[in-house]
């Protein structure tokens, strides 16, 4: 049997298909930006989403092999050999299916060298994701082989490839834009995780595995079946697997992802004051620690300044369209601890990390549902930095001249007060922001508040 599979590997289009899969994966990873270089979650996501393209290629590759007997007019000759059809087809099915699945897995392992050398946090679930993709690739090849055997036209490979794309695009758009539908679970183009510590939920992986097994089972039955019985069984298998795969993972983002406690574990830099980031972002700790300490030094102008800094973490999965979720996050910082965001872009911390921390006197990640007061926050940040303007803070007010003007007015009113009063006002504004109460922070800074 092994010898036969070896012969099939050389005779069939396995090499072309493997090259095509590897090429398409490399192109997809190269075009998708640098996000996956450092985190296993993002790599798993990118590599798993590439199935949107790879599955149609696998189906088409199977169809090319399925056409072989009829294309060479050897079908009658081969049918006359005294062996059951299933046994006759098995070497070809296994050779091409395993080649496609392994190509997918090896592409992940090769790309995984990059996150591995940065020593990034690796969760088990992120590593299981490619395995579900390998099952799906096997299923795609077998289903395509059945299609090619059923209709041996040269039209079949390109047509099934585009039809598989069509089906996936249609399924991923099910429920309309912004909506949700269980049918979306049948497409491999899933929604990306919002934060690096969000891991794919086991139910989703289970759903994809069942879907892949369903494709493989239906493909095997259709390719090897000789009567109507296996064909009906194939439709039933596909139906059951599709129903399970659609229903099990749920429809919301919070069903598809879960917060990984291991990824959120804090890793701290040597030296004082203590600066900690999450395990998934440990690779920027050395760059970030001096910047965070600089920001803490600025914040120390105020009485009761935080003595420790820890990266902000979410305690639940971000659900698209959550109305109660502002950029302030959902987790209030511990007393005496400064919560900050790394403002990562292209795996690097922002040049304006200090500005992003001191804005709002270090209270932007306060865990309040109402978020923050942009004008008061920017004014307090500029006051702490000793500048007139706070550059590099992405809160949308940069392109709002009216808000910019207000910041200048507040800043002027604040600086007109005596030195001690300025410190008192900014500290009062900080405490108000941390308390999550709805107080007019601008009034506190300008001295118009009753307190």
């Amino acid at each position: 049997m092994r010898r036969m599979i070896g012969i099939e590997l050389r005779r069939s289009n396995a090499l072309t298909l493997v090259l095509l899969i590897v090429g398409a994966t490399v192109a997809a990873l190269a075009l998708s930006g640098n996000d996956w270089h450092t985190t296993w979650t993002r790599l798993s996501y990118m590599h798993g989403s590439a199935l949107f393209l790879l599955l149609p290629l696998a189906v088409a590759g199977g169809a090319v092999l399925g056409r072989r007997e009829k294309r060479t007019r050897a079908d009658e000759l081969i049918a006359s050999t005294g062996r059951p059809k299933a046994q006759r087809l098995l070497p070809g099915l296994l050779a091409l299916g395993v080649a496609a699945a392994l190509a997918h897995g090896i592409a992940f392992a090769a790309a995984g060298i990059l996150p591995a050398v940065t020593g990034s946090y690796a969760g088990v679930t992120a590593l299981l994701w490619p395995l579900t993709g390998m099952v799906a690739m096997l299923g795609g090849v077998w289903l395509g082989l059945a299609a090619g055997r059923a209709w041996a036209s040269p039209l079949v490979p390109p047509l099934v490839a585009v039809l598989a794309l069509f089906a996936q695009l249609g399924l991923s758009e099910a429920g309309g834009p912004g909506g949700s539908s269980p049918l979306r679970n049948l497409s491999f183009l899933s929604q990306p995780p919002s934060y690096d510590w969000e891991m794919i939920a086991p139910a989703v992986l289970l759903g994809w595995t069942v879907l892949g097994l369903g494709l493989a089972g239906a493909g095997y039955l259709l390719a090897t079946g000789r009567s109507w019985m296996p064909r009906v069984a194939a439709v039933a298998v596909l139906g059951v697997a599709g129903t399970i795969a659609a229903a099990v993972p749920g429809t919301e983002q919070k069903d598809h992802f879960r917060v990984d406690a291991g990824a959120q574990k804090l890793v701290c830099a040597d030296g004082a004051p203590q600066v900690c980031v999450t395990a998934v972002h440990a690779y920027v700790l050395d760059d970030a620690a001096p910047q965070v300490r600089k920001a803490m030094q600025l914040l120390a102008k105020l009485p009761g300044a935080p003595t420790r800094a820890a990266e902000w973490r979410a305690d639940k999965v971000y659900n698209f369209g959550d109305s109660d979720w502002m950029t302030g996050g959902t987790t209030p910082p511990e007393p005496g601890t400064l919560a900050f965001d790394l403002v990562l872009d292209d795996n690097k911390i922002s040049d304006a990390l200090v500005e992003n921390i001191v804005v709002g006197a270090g209270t932007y990640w306060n865990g309040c549902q109402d978020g923050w007061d942009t004008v008061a926050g920017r004014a307090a940040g500029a006051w702490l930095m000793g500048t007139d303007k706070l550059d590099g803070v992405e809160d949308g007010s940069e392109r709002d001249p009216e808000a910019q003007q207000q910041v200048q007015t507040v800043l002027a009113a604040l600086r007109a007060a005596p030195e001690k009063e300025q410190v008192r006002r900014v500290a009062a504004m900080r405490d108000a922001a941390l308390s999550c109460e709805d107080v007019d922070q601008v009034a506190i800074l300008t001295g118009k508040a009753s307190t």
Partner: protein
Amino acid sequence: MMRWLTLYARSRRLPLAILLSVAAVALTWAGWGLFTDRREINQSLAVLTVLLALAPLIPTMAGDDDSLESGVALNWPPRRALHVLAFAAVVSVPLLASAATGAWFGPAGVLLRDVAALAGLIALGVALFGIRLSWQLPVCWTVLQMLFGNLAEPGWREAPFLLFQPASSKPAAAAAIALIVAGVLAYAWRVGPRTAPAEVAFGQ
């Protein structure tokens, strides 16, 4: 002449191909009309429809026996060029006609650009690699553009992501024209790699 055309269409399996192309456009058009109330078809879906409509073109670009055909004393290059252009025109008609109906595939300029670019890419692929491999590049590149088309920066970088550019994009239009010209010329010059004689003997 009529007799030659009939024989040519049959030898290239054209009736089935054209039927499938038109059916592909009709499928998207009817599906969109049934399931949504918006008129303009999602751009990704429109581009995939163009690809699906052009996919049947690929197997029509070679006959069963190239060596037999090349022995015929006909001026093949203009005929082959016309084959690609005519097929692209046939695909364009139902796409453009959708402008008069309740589900619209998008501006005429964008549609013609996409059809020209993909037909050119297919013809170029057939001339270089033959009909069995030529579908791979158009399919892969279209999907990669679909997923990452928003990455295109203004300027010449619009050209590689041409399918998802607005109608006003000059680099995209230039790239589409270059592709159709290169594709038609390459296919007119060369029908693709010869099939192995042993395989031709088995026949289609």
